[in-house]
């Protein structure tokens, strides 16, 4: 029974590929846990899973307090950002759309910028300790939600999806200009704090934060899963979708809500993570050779986790004491990837 459902869901080629992607995810997850400034041998790691304690107690702390929550954050961010990107690309019928086109990252950035830099710019202090991770999360969430509410109001007024896209981009530009002004008048110390936030950080989420993030990601995924069929209908454009019985206004709100919750929460906890949201859906289409969202949803989520795990593993710089900012890695690998994809075959043809 389950098998027949699976068979009609995706073909053999696609299920094989999905299996490979999931297998690679597990392998890369183990490698990710093992590598870093302190290397934990894979053998001990597998032993630890089987219940044998580590020979060195410090490994236990490194693994449980730092690497494991970080790898779970990678899992959530990889799924959330790439599925947001997929929804945006299908909804706006634009291959360059990504999770941040509605200005959510700029909104979160503005929240954080106000928190970290407004002190000198306006001469007042919002919090005694702006570097506190919870206050950063609060500010970023407030900013993202503010933009989300504004986009909601715009969506109420504007019925055309292209106009909505432009409004979103303009919101982004407007908030960026405020951030630039704040940065111009702020002290060097605060500017650095903001700049580091904007580079993205997957390692800031402890176990307690992780619960909230997981809850938000699950909440954001539910509307997206319910709308899978509507996204398939959108492949032929809005008019065809409506003619096939899709409630377009409902889909629009679903898209805004789902991507808003997903990217808003991830940006709040991890900062704006570049490239994953735009590149991964294309990669999933290329690898699975399909446009059907019932296949693309699991495929995109799997590939998203895989790519972000790989980027995070590289950013840990095995054997060195420091780690690179995650955005430097995602962009350094994402940009060549996109260029390679464009060179290999026409981007728009595959889309």
């Amino acid at each position, binding site marked *: 029974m389950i098998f027949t459902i699976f068979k009609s869901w995706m073909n053999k080629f696609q299920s094989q590929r999905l299996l490979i992607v999931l297998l690679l995810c597990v392998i890369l997850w183990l490698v990710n846990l093992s590598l870093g400034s302190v290397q934990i041998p894979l053998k001990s790691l597998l032993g630890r899973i089987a219940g044998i304690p580590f020979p060195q107690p410090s490994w236990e702390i490194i693994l449980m307090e730092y690497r494991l929550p970080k790898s779970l954050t990678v899992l959530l961010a990889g799924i959330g950002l790439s599925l947001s990107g997929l929804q945006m690309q299908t909804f706006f019928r634009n291959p360059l759309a990504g999770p941040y086109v509605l200005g959510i990252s700029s909104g979160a950035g503005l929240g954080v910028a106000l928190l970290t830099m407004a002190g000198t710019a306006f001469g007042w202090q919002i919090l005694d300790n702006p570097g506190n991770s919870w206050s950063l999360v609060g500010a970023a969430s407030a900013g993202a939600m503010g933009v989300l509410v504004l986009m909601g109001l715009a969506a109420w007024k504007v019925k055309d999806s292209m106009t909505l896209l432009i409004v979103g981009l303009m919101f982004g530009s407007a908030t960026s200009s405020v951030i630039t002004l704040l940065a111009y008048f702020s002290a060097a110390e605060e500017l650095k704090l903001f700049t580091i936030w904007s580079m993205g950080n997957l390692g800031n989420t402890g176990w307690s934060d992780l619960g909230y993030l997981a809850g938000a990601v699950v909440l954001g995924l539910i509307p997206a899963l319910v709308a*899978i069929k509507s996204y398939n209908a959108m492949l032929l454009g809005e008019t065809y979708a409506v003619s096939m019985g899709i409630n377009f206004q409902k889909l629009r709100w679903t898209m805004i809500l789902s991507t808003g919750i997903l990217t808003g929460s991830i940006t709040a906890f991890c900062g704006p993570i570049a490239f994953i949201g735009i590149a991964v859906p294309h990669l999933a289409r290329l690898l699975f050779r399909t446009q059907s969202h019932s296949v693309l949803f699991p495929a995109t989520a799997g590939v998203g986790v895989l790519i972000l795990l790989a980027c995070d593993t590289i950013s840990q710089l095995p054997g060195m004491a420091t780690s690179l900012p995650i955005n430097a890695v995602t962009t350094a690998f994402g940009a060549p990837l996109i260029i390679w994809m464009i060179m290999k075959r026409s981007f728009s043809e595959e889309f």
Partner: protein
Amino acid sequence: MDNPENRQDEKEGFVRAKNLELGYRSGVETQGVASGVSFSLFRKELTCLMGPNGVGKSTLLKAIMHQHPPLKGEVWLGNAPASHLSEKERAKRVAVVLTEKIPTGLLTVRDLVALGRIPHTGWWGQLSPVDQAKINEVMALTSISHLAHKTVSALSDGQRQTALIARALAQDSPIMVLDEPTAHLDLSNRFEIMYLLRDLARKASKAILVVTHDLEVALETADKLWLMDARQPLLTGSPEDLMISGGIQRLLPGEKWRVDAASGKIIRNTTPLPCQIEGPEPMVSWVKNALRKNPELNLPEAIFLTETPFAIKATFSQHQQTFDSISEMIRFLQNQLKPENFFLK
């Protein structure tokens, strides 16, 4: 098949409307496009909607699809007005083929046709064996089964249009609405597509409405014509009746053009040629055709045509001339004209 509702459809039409007012609503302002539009669309019939650009053909289609509801009046789809149906119920009654270019990408023909099942599947879009059978059936009906695994971007224009028609068929709705399905197609494909639609109307008992500008194909294939025209009510009837009554002339407002009652071709209103032409029939009319296109020429007094071998003997006031082809004669006549050079005057 014999319930009272079906019998009512046969009398009144499956899609019907009385005194519709069509137009757009933007805020409080309304912009009327056409008013007093009444019609009945019957099952098992292919109906062509024709008329000049901008008279509101697309608006009428959108009113039937309920994407731009009429400003006044109701369109009835079977036993219920369109506005009383939910999106899904409407989708089960009306399927469309639009002019807009579809983004193709990696979509295979079968995937495209399968999209037509969307109103019938559950939230996940899972295709049941019934859906699969329907997809196979419509692909066989439109003879595109052999293209199933090709991507839509690899199809020719005619094949793509057929695939889009198959998608609309898969939607399993009694009404099909097509907006210029034969635009961009070559001559034979235009006929193929329209004959396919005519066949489908019969075999699958569909009410099919097609917007087209192609009079020749419409006369050949349509059961009914709806002629739409600014400031006049919709004129409906079989193409043959409209030809005989002269109602067809509405397609060509103004004095310049008319539809030839014998051939159904669109011709320019002209005065008879001041030249006597004799010879076997198809040749005479083509020579006339060539001469009409070049009204500035000084015509010979008489032209005599012979069949085998083809030759044209032209009698002028002073001499006679023989030509092997019409273009040779036209070239000769053009050279007879005095060069009119405005700079030398």
